[in-house]
C-alpha cells in the first residue's frame, strides 16, 4: 500500500475530513520588496505553511537562504539579492511537503528599503524619510499615508508607486506631492505607462519640506493593499522616444515627461533577448523601467511635417521599424516603404504595450493613397494587420489616434516584419480565475493528469512535446498533439520512492524544424470580466513530488472496442488508504471525441469500484484514443444526490456547503492512460419498410449484415406512441431480427421514421451496446388503408394505383 497513515483531526466546524497532502496557500508577502545586493526577509503568511521546503524561484539573481516556519500560518524567508541581479519582479512558489503554492512575487529595487510607520495620515504628522528610498507601506481602509522629504530649490523629486504590480490586489493608488506651503504641486493616478500605479515628479520651487501622500483612489484600502513607494531624485520619464531599436546597436533616445525636462541618453542594445531602459542620473537608477522593444531591424524615425502621404520620408525596404509621436490632436503621420507583389507583411503597432497614451489606428495605403488594409485594435489594444501586397511599388503607413488626441508623450512604433512562425506549449487552465492546478503536484507512487496545449503561429502539423529534465522519480510519456488538435492530456507519474522535491521544468514542443518553449501567463490581479491588470509570464512548468495520496484509481482495460453509436461499460477501481473512508468522485478528463459519460460517477464510501458507461454518439470519431480517469473526494452535494445514501460523516444537518475546489486540497489523482478503440459496430442493420393499421400488429424486420458475434438481446426503440414490441434474442450468427409490433387504435397515423434497434450483450463481462438501423420507418395507417402485395409487403401509393388500374 502506498498510502500512508494520515492524521485525522476534527475540524472545529464539525467537519471531519482527513488531512491529506495539500499545497500551502499564501495570503500575503510582506514587505514584498528587497534591495539589490542586500539580504532581506519576506514574511509569508497563509495556511499550511508548517513545513516549508523550498522557495522555487523562476529567474536567477535572488536566492532564498533560509526558511523559518512560525506555526501553521507564517514563514520567514531570508533572501539574498545579488549585486548585479535584475531589478523588478521575481516570481516564486513556496513548496512544502504538501505541494507548491500559487505563484506570488516580490520586487527588487535599487534603493534602500524602509517600512511605513503609522500614524502618518495627515500632512502635519508625516513620516519623515530620507531621499532615494523605497518605502514599503499598506493602504488600510480609507487610509492616507504621508511622507515628508526635505528638498533644496531646483532639486528634483520623483515619486513612483508599485501597487498593482505587487500582484495581490487591485491596489489602485493615487499620489500627490505638496510643497512647503501646502500647495499641491503634482497629483497622479492612472497613466498609460504603469496603468494603475501612479508616478509624478516635480522640481522643488523653494527649499523646504515636501509631503508625498499615498491613498486608495476611491478612499478604499485594506490590510493587503501593500505598495512600494520609490521616493528620490531619480529621473522618471513618462515616455522614451524611440521606444525601440535594432539589436546590438547603440540607440539614442529622448526621455520625455520628467519634471526636470527632456533629456537624451544613449544605450547599447543587446544582440538577443529583451532590454529594460532605466535611466541613471546623478548615480541614481530609476527604480522601474520603461518598456522598450529590441528588434532585429533598423529604425526610421518620423520627420514632421508628414501629415500627408506625399510629405512622408523617403521609401525604405521592409522589414523596418517606424517610430513617431502623435504630436498634437488630430495629427496623422505617414511613412513610405517599398514592397513586392505577394509580400505578406505583419504590420504591428506598439503604443499601449510601450506605455503610450496613443490609441493607434494604422492604415496601409498604396502609392495612390488608396486604402489597402487598416486596423484599430487587435487583442493587445494596439493595431495589427497582416497585409498581402497587391503589386510592386511604394506603399504608405498612416498612423493616427482613434480619439484624434495627441501630445508630446504620444509615442508609437510600427514594425513591419514577416509573419511570426513558431509554436508555444502552455498549460491549459483547469479552473478559470484561479491558479488551481497550475503546479503539477504528483503524490508519490501515484499519478496526476494535466492538459498541455499548443499554440501554432503560421505552422501546421503534429507537435511532439518533451521535457528537458523532470524531478527525480517523476516520468511522463508526454506525446504528440495531432495535426488537428491543440490539447494533449498528459499523465505524470511519481515513483513510490521518488524524493519529495520539485523542479521548474522546461517543456519543448517540436513540429518539423520548428521548436518552441513553454509559456504560461499567470494572472495575479484581475480586472472585471476576464481582464488582466497584472500578470506574470512563466517559461517553466512547476512539477513537484508530494506526499502520498490516500487514493489511487485504475481503469480496467476495456474488453471490447466501443462501437460508434453504441455504449460500452468499463470498470473503474479505487484503492483507499487507511483512515480514508470518504465517497470518491470519478471524472474523465480525457475521452475520445464524440464520447461522453453522461452521469456523475460517485463511488460510495463502502464501495471500491464503479461501472461506468461510455456513450459514443453516431458522430464519434473512429480510432485509438486515450482514456484517463481522475478521482478525488466527492463533493458533499454530489454524494447527497443519492437520496438513500447516508450523509457523509460530519456533514450534519446544515447541508454543508464547501468550496468548489477539490475537497480539502486532495489533489485529484489520475489513472494510467488507457487505450480505447472506437470502431464501427461489427454488425449493421437495415429496417425493411413496414406499415400497419391502427389497432393491429405488424412484423418489423431488421436485416443484419455482419456477425453479431455473441448472444445479444434486441430491443426496438423509437416506436410511435402507444406502439409496443417485445425484446427479441439474437443469435451470434443471426441474419434478421423480427419484432412483433402491436399498434394501438389510438397510435397516431403517419410515417414514423424513428426506429432503432438496440442490441445489448456482453464482452469480457462488461455490457456492450450497439445501435442498428437508425431512422427505420414504420407507417401507421387508418384501418383499411394498408394495401400489401401477396407477400404482405406494403405497397407504395403508385403501386396501389397500378393495382387498381389492373383490376379495372
Amino acid at each position, binding site marked *: 500500500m502506498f498510502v500512508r497513515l494520515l492524521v485525522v483531526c476534527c475540524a472545529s466546524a464539525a467537519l471531519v475530513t482527513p488531512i491529506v497532502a495539500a499545497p500551502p496557500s499564501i495570503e500575503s508577502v510582506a514587505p514584498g520588496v528587497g534591495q539589490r545586493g542586500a539580504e532581506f526577509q519576506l514574511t509569508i503568511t497563509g495556511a499550511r505553511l508548517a513545513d516549508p521546503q523550498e522557495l522555487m524561484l523562476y529567474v536567477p539573481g535572488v536566492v532564498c537562504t533560509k526558511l523559518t516556519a512560525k506555526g501553521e500560518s507564517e514563514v520567514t524567508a531570508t533572501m539574498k539579492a545579488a549585486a548585479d541581479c535584475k531589478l523588478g519582479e521575481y516570481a516564486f512558489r513556496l513548496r512544502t511537503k504538501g505541494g507548491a503554492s500559487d505563484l506570488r512575487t516580490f520586487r527588487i529595487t535599487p534603493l534602500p528599503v524602509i517600512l511605513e510607520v503609522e500614524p502618518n495620515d495627515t500632512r502635519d504628522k508625516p513620516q519623515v524619510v530620507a531621499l532615494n528610498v523605497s518605502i514599503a507601506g499598506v493602504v488600510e481602509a480609507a487610509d492616507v499615508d504621508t511622507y515628508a522629504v526635505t528638498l533644496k530649490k531646483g532639486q528634483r523629486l520623483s515619486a513612483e508607486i508599485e501597487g498593482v504590480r505587487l500582484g495581490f490586489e487591485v491596489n489602485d493608488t493615487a499620489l500627490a506631492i505638496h510643497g512647503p506651503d501646502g500647495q499641491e504641486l503634482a497629483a497622479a493616478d*492612472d497613466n498609460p505607462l504603469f496603468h494603475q500605479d501612479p508616478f509624478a515628479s516635480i522640481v522643488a520651487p523653494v527649499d523646504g519640506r515636501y509631503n508625498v501622500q499615498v491613498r486608495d483612489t476611491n*478612499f*478604499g484600502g485594506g490590510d493587503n493593499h501593500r505598495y512600494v513607494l520609490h521616493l528620490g531624485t531619480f529621473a522618471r520619464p513618462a515616455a522614451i522616444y524611440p521606444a525601440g531599436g535594432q539589436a546590438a546597436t547603440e540607440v539614442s533616445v529622448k526621455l520625455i515627461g520628467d519634471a526636470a525636462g527632456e533629456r537624451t541618453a544613449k544605450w547599447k542594445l543587446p544582440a538577443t533577448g529583451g532590454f529594460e531602459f532605466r535611466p541613471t542620473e546623478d548615480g541614481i537608477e530609476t527604480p522601474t523601467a520603461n518598456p522598450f522593444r529590441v528588434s532585429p531591424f533598423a529604425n526610421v524615425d518620423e520627420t514632421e511635417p508628414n501629415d500627408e502621404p506625399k510629405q512622408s520620408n523617403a521609401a525604405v525596404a521592409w522589414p523596418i521599424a517606424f517610430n513617431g509621436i502623435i504630436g498634437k490632436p488630430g495629427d496623422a503621420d505617414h511613412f513610405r516603404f517599398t514592397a513586392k507583389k505577394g509580400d505578406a507583411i505583419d504590420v504591428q503597432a506598439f503604443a499601449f504595450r510601450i506605455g503610450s497614451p496613443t490609441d493607434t489606428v494604422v492604415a496601409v495605403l498604396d502609392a495612390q493613397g488608396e486604402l489597402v488594409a487598416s486596423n484599430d485594435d487587435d487583442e493587445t489594444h494596439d493595431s495589427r494587420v497582416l497585409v498581402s501586397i497587391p503589386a510592386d511599388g511604394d506603399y504608405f503607413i498612416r498612423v493616427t489616434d482613434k480619439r484624434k488626441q495627441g501630445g508630446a508623450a504620444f509615442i508609437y512604433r510600427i514594425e513591419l516584419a514577416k509573419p511570426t512562425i513558431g509554436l508555444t506549449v502552455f498549460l491549459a487552465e483547469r479552473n478559470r480565475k484561479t491558479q488551481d492546478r497550475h503546479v503539477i503536484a504528483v503524490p508519490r507512487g501515484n499519478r496526476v493528469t494535466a492538459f498541455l496545449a499548443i499554440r501554432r503561429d503560421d505552422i501546421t502539423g503534429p507537435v511532439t512535446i518533451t521535457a528537458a529534465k523532470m524531478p527525480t522519480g517523476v516520468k511522463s510519456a508526454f506525446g504528440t498533439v495531432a495535426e488537428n488538435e491543440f490539447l494533449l492530456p498528459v499523465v505524470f507519474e511519481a515513483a513510490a520512492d521518488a524524493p519529495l522535491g520539485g523542479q521548474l521544468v522546461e517543456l519543448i514542443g517540436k513540429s518539423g524544424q520548428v521548436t518552441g518553449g513553454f509559456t504560461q501567463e499567470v494572472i495575479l490581479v484581475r*480586472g*472585471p470580466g476576464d481582464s*488582466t491588470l497584472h500578470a506574470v509570464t512563466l517559461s517553466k512548468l512547476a512539477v513537484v513530488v508530494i506526499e502520498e495520496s490516500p487514493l489511487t484509481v485504475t481503469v480496467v482495460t476495456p474488453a471490447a472496442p466501443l462501437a460508434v453509436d453504441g455504449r460500452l461499460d468499463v470498470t473503474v477501481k479505487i484503492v483507499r488508504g487507511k483512515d480514508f473512508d470518504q465517497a470518491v468522485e470519478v471524472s474523465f478528463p480525457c475521452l475520445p471525441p464524440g464520447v461522453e459519460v453522461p452521469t456523475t460517477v460517485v463511488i460510495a464510501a463502502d464501495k471500491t469500484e464503479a461501472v461506468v458507461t461510455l456513450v459514443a454518439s453516431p458522430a464519434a470519431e473512429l480510432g485509438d484514443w486515450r482514456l484517463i480517469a481522475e478521482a478525488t473526494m466527492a463533493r458533499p452535494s454530489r454524494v447527497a444526490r443519492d437520496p438513500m445514501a447516508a450523509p457523509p460523516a460530519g456533514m450534519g444537518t446544515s447541508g454543508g456547503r464547501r468550496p468548489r475546489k477539490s475537497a480539502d486540497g486532495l489533489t485529484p489523482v489520475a489513472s494510467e492512460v488507457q487505450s480505447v478503440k472506437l470502431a464501427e459496430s461489427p454488425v449493421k442493420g437495415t429496417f425493411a419498410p413496414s406499415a400497419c393499421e391502427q389497432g393491429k400488429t405488424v412484423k418489423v424486420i431488421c436485416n443484419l449484415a455482419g456477425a453479431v458475434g455473441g448472444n445479444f438481446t434486441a430491443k426496438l426503440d423509437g416506436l410511435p406512441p402507444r406502439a409496443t414490441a417485445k425484446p427479441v434474442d439474437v443469435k451470434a450468427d443471426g441474419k434478421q431480427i423480427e419484432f412483433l409490433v402491436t399498434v394501438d387504435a389510438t397510435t397516431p397515423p403517419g410515417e414514423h421514421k424513428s426506429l432503432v434497434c438496440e442490441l445489448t450483450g456482453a464482452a469480457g463481462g462488461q455490457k456492450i451496446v450497439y445501435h442498428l438501423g437508425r431512422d427505420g420507418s414504420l407507417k401507421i395507417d387508418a384501418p383499411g388503408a394498408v394495401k400489401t402485395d401477396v407477400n404482405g409487403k406494403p405497397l407504395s401509393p403508385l403501386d396501389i394505383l397500378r393495382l387498381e388500374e389492373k383490376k379495372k
Partner: protein
Amino acid sequence: MRFALIAIGLFTMATSVTAAESTVSITVSPASIELTGARDRQGLVVQAAFADGSTQDVTAEATFALEKPIATIANAFLAPASDGATTLIVTFDKHSTKVPVTVSKAKDAEAIRFRTDVMTVFTKVGCNTGKCHGSASGKDGFRLSLFGYDPDGDYTRITREMGGRRVNLATPDDCLLVNKVTGKVPHTGGQRILPGSENDLLIRRWLEAGAPKDPKETPKPVSIEVFPKQAVFAAKGAAQRIVVRAKYSDGTDRDVTRFTVFVGNNDAAASVADDGVVTGVGPGEAFILARFDQFTEGTAVIVRPGTPFADPKTPEFNYVDKLVHAKLNKLHVKPSEVCTDEVFLRRVSIDLIGKLPSLTEREKFLADTDPKKREVLVEALLKREEFRDIWVMKWAETLQIRTINGISAKGLQLYDKWLRDKIRGGATIDKVVRELLPAVGGTFENPAVNYFQTETAPQLLAENVSQVFLGTRIQCAQCHNHPFDRWTMDDYYGFASFFSQIGYKNAQDPREITVFNSGTGDMRHPVGNRSVKPKFLGGATPELKPGQDYRAALAEWLTSTENPDFARNVGNIVWAHFFGRGIVDSVDDVRVSNPASNQELLDTLGAKASEYKFDIEKLARDICLSRTYQLSTKRNATNEWDERNFAHQSLRRMRAEVLLDCITQVTETTNRFPGLPLGGRAVQIPDGRTPNYFLTTFGRAARTTACSCEVKTTPTLSQALHLLNGETTTGKIVEGKVVAKLLADKTEPIAVAERLYLCCLGRKPTANELAKIGSKLDRADDKSAALEDLFWALLNTNEFIFNR
C-alpha cells in the same frame, strides 16, 4: 346657419358688464380680420382694461359697425357677405377701435376636408385622446393617431379598415362612424356628438361627398393665436371669452374656437368651459390652454380676491423684489414681513452651504449692528467651499453621476472629481457643458466622457440634455407630437441626431471605455425611416461638415449667452434652490401649458444669468439679498392662498443630504461614506447609488433619471419613524457624546438644554419651554439621559428638519 347657432351658444355665457370704474382702454381681438370662402367665420372679443389693472370682457356690451356691408355681424361673429375690404368700428364706453376687414371668395363654399374639418371634430370631441382611440393599441378595435399626429394614417383607418362598415358611402347616415359617435349604437365612449349639431353635419357632409381624400394642396395649419393673451378678473365670477384663430399654409386664417380643446391648470382659480369661456372661481391664477391640431397656446388668467387693495409700496432691495411686487400687486397680494436675523442666519446657511450656523457664528451675527450685515454674511458664505459642494451635488444630479452601465467605482470617482474640480475652480455650468458634451477619450483619462457611458442611446441623451439644460421634456415627441407643447417628432429626432455619431471602444484599462466621435451614422425618423439632420431644439439646422463632432456644435449653441432657454433654465434652477419651487415649476418642465408664475422675473433672471456668464454665485447673491428671499414664512391675510408668487418664504424640508449633514454637525459625529475620506459630508457623496438608508428614506436623488423630481422633500411616515426609532439620531447622539462633554465642562443642565436649542434650532428656548425643561430636569435622576432625550426630541422636531 349652423355656425351661427354655435356662436349664440357661446355668447350667452358671457357675463354682463358692471364697470366699477371707467375703462382705460379697450382691446379688440383679432386686430384684423380676413374672411375667405363662404364657410369662414370670425369671432371677436373686446376686452376693457381698468386703471387698477383689471380687465373685463365687454364683447356683449360693445357695439359693432361696418363701414361697408361686406359682412354680417351677429353676436360678435363676422360672416362674409360679399368680396371687398372695409373697416369694423368697435365702440365701448368712450373708446372705439378700428378693425380692418377683408372678404374674399364670399360665394365659394369650399369642400369639406378630412384633415382641416373632420379630424378637428374628432380631436375636439375627444375621439383621439390617449384613453380612447388615440391609445397606442386603439380602443374597441379602432385606432386613431394620438391627437391626430398622423392624418394620413387616420384617413386610411377610417375609410379603408373594415370596408363598408365603419364608413358606408351608400348610406352615409347609417354607418358605424356616425352611429357610434352620435350614440345611435352602443359606444364605450358614449354620445360624443349631438345628432344635427354642426360637428355631426360636418362629418356627414364629408361622407356624403364620398369621404374624399384631401387633395395634396390642402392647406395645413401652421400656427394658432389665442385672444386675449391675458385677463385680470377683479373678483371671482367674472368671465372672459376666448377666441382661437389658426393660420394656414396658404396664408388664410380661420376661427377654430369651436374645434379647440380647452384645459385649465388651476380650477380653484378659474375654470374653462368647452366653448372657451373662462370663469373666475376664486383668487389665484390659472393658465387656460388651447390645443388645436398640433399647436398649443394659452391665456393667463388672474382672479383677484375682490377685496379693497392698495399698493403697499413695499421696499425693494433689488430688481428681484421689483418684479415680484409687480406681480403681487396684480394679484392684490401683499408680501409677508422680512424674517428675523436669527431665522435669516439659519435659512441662508442651510441654503448656501448646507450647514447650520455655529454658536459663535450666531452670536457674532446677532451682535453685529452693521445694517449691511446680511450682505456681509451672504458674501462670506458664498466664498466657502461648502457652497460649491452644494452646487457640485446639484449638477451631479443633473448629470446623473452614478455607477451604472459598467461605470467602475474608479470611473465614478474620477467623474465626480472632474466636476468638483471644475466647479471649485470657478467653472460655470456652461463651461462644464461645453467640455462635457463634445468629450472624447477614456472614461479615466477624460472623466467627462462618463456622461456618455451613463446613457448610451442617442434618444435618451437628447431627452436628458433637453430636460436638464433647457428645462424641456421632449420625451412625448419620441412617439407622437407633444400634446401639450410645441415639440414634434421632427424636433425630437433632429435633436437626437446630435448624438448619433458617438463611438465606443475598449480603453487601455479594462475598467474603462473610450468614447470618440465616429464621424458616421445618422438618426432615423420612425415614420418613413428617413435620415434626420441635426436640428437645435426650437432652433436652426446647423451646417455640419462630414466627420465634424455634432456634439460640439450642440454644446456651442446650447450654452451660448444668446440662447435664452439655457439662461432662463439656469436662473430658474438657482431660484428654485432658494424657494423650494421654480418660477416655472418643476424647473425641468417648461412647456406652453406650464407657464412661469412670473415671466418677467424669469426673463430677467435669465438675462442676469447670461450677463453673469452663468456664475451661480452672483445669481445666488442677488436672490439671497432680495427682500423676497428674506421674507418670513408667516403669511398675511392677503397672501394666505398664494403658493406660487413668492409672497412669503415657504417652509422647506431640508434635502436628505443636508439633513444628514446637519444631524452629523449638531451631534459632533463623523460619517464614513464610500468614496470619501473619513468625515466626508453627505453632500459630497460621489455616487448616486451609494446605499444609505437615511438618504434613501429622506428622498435623496438616485440619479437614475435626469428628472428634478428625483429629489424628494415631502415628508413620509418612514422618515418620521426613522428619526424616532432609527439608528441615525439615537446612534449619533450616543456616538457624539455632546451632552456628556458639556456636562463634563461643568455646564449647568439647563444651560446645556439652552445650548442644544441654539445648536439645533438656532434659537433659545421660549420661557414656556424653559420652564417645562427645568421641571423635567429637576425631577430627572440621570441628567445626562434626560438631556439626551431632549436632544433626541429636538432632532425630531419639524423646526429642526425644516428650513424656515
